[in-house]
């Protein structure tokens, strides 16, 4: 197989600038306050999930006699109707929610890449069928489908839940990645690489992916958000394994024990706030990626205004 060095100098130049632009984006991301804040919050939850046995040692489901105790110095977030520590359950719950969220998000993104990029790159009938499939799955509402699938599975385990969520979470990403592939496919440097005899996989890996990376990451984060929301919803409905500790099952038990009507707000607030924080954090990261690739959207419109004023003057 011929190496990429064979392509005409002009395109090589373009290739280099595109690659270095990727590098610059990375630096821009590190300097971007919005994005870094989001990233830090997200990593904090990942650390919490990994370190749960050390931060909150013990069994989070252990039943005690101290039921429905409001937050105090011993139980920082109070207790459940079965006397479990809400703080401990929230910390341990991070594990299952993140595990399902990250795996289902990654799997769905992989499907989006295979169907979106694969379809667009193959073109012709393959692309038509792939596009039709994505468009149909976009309009079929996900949650009802997931509810039906998990009901058939009878208290779906972690693996089944990941598969069900990934199965409904791929189409939007496939559509976005497809249009990006189509626009890249017709660029000169990709054409040159193909003409120089590079195989399909080589072109995809060396020419397409480096230029789609930010889009793929943005899509991955969006899908993880979707997967976390779906997992929490299904667990809240009691369609997963209700004996595991997760944010969704916490809310399931809380509403089963009528926590709010007993005034036990401390049981409901923590899991929801955590979901909101993770979702918000991922949205912040996504926004900063958006801002870097599309500077018009940035909040600080000052330089733009100045330019505009100069133009008008």
């Amino acid at each position, binding site marked *: 197989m011929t190496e990429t060095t064979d392509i005409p100098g002009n395109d090589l130049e373009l290739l280099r600038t595109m690659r270095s632009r990727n590098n610059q984006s990375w630096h821009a991301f590190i300097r971007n306050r919005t994005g870094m804040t989001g990233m830090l919050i997200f990593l904090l939850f990942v650390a919490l999930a990994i370190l749960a046995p050390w931060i909150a040692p013990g069994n989070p489901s252990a039943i005690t006699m101290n039921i429905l105790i409001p937050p105090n110095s011993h139980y920082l977030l109070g207790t459940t109707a079965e006397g479990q520590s809400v703080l401990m359950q929230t910390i341990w719950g991070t594990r299952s929610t993140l595990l399902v969220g990250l795996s289902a998000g990654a799997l769905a993104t992989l499907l989006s890449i295979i169907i979106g990029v694969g379809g667009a790159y193959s073109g012709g009938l393959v692309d038509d069928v792939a596009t039709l499939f994505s468009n149909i799955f976009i309009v079929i509402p996900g949650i009802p489908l997931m509810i039906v699938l998990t009901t*058939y599975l009878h208290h779906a385990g972690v693996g089944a839940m990941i598969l069900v969520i990934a199965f409904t979470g791929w189409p939007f990403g496939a559509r976005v990645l497809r249009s990006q592939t189509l626009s890249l496919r017709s660029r000169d440097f990709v054409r040159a690489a193909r003409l120089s005899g590079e195989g399909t996989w080589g072109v995809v890996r060396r020419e397409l992916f480096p230029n789609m990376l930010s889009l793929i990451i943005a899509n991955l984060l969006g899908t993880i958000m979707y997967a976390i929301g779906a997992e929490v919803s299904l667990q809240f409905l009691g369609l997963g394994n209700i004996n595991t500790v997760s944010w969704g099952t916490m*809310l399931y038990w809380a509403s089963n024990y009528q926590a709010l009507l007993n005034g036990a707000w401390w049981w409901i607030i923590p899991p929801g706030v955590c*979901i909101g924080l993770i979702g918000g954090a991922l949205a912040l990261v996504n926004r900063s990626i958006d801002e870097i690739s599309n500077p018009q959207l940035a909040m600080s419109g000052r330089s733009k205004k100045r330019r505009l004023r100069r133009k008008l003057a």
Partner: protein
Amino acid sequence: MTYLRRRLLFYLIAFWASITLNFLIPRLMPGNAAEDLMMRMHGKVSPYALKALESEFGLAQHTSLLTQYGQYLVALAHGNFGVSITYFPTPVIVVIEQALPWTLGLIGVATVISFALGTLIGIWVAWHRASRWDRFTVPAAMFTSAFPYFWLALIFLYVFGFLFHWFPLAQAYSSSLPPALTVPSIIDIVYHAILPAFTIVIASLGGWILSMRNNMIPSLQEDYIQLARAAGIKDRIIMYQYAARNALLPNLTGFAMALGFIVAGAILTEIVFSYPGLGFLLFQAASNQDYPLLQALLLIISVAVLLANLIVDLLYGRLDPRANRSGG
């Protein structure tokens, strides 16, 4: 092919696909959900009804998949979805007919309010970009849309229903006042719908604000906007009639995606408020493993979402003449 014909063809295919998916799910899922169901129903149902259940789930081994598919399509065409287990022996179609108006009313009104309000706020913050309001609205919109609908529903229920006693805790109407077309009954129904509708509006508002802002900003950079400004046309007219009109179109195309999320969120909101719509019914069907009802609900919800998308697409074709020309 014209835009209209292409879209109609697509929705026909999507319609067929969701019908077929609905047929395949019970036959492809592992385990023997249907046999469990048959066991539970034995002795409670007439042999004739058992036979009907059997064919519905493809348990009758002697018929081929294709024959079963044919029978399924014929039953569908007659609006025959079988009998609900939860509300035995009421036919599924009757159960759904009773729940449908509540969901259509709740989601319909809440979505329209949320879309209109979100679009207006989006226009406004895009116009005042980087102002104090913009700096507040964008992160606020991002965080409110990150919370699950059902969690917001729980919180609103606690604060406005339980603590303040402003709104009822559940149901769509008072049990003492059956729904009717009288003034007190309508007031009662609206009163019960406010909190669930408020939940859906708050949870979906952020998405509309952000997407409208994102569409509005590039449209504000266009030359014709600068020309209008230079010509001294009033800001209000530039904002709404020049920029927002063009920014609204891409927002409409995002509707398909957004509607899926709103429907999903509304289903869970209904469950929290015990609101007697399709979402609450779906939850009951799932809890009781009422497969005939479950399947019919999936189909009805999918078709309703397809129809809503079709309407938006038709509207889009009307609003953007370019859509009819491209790809002709």
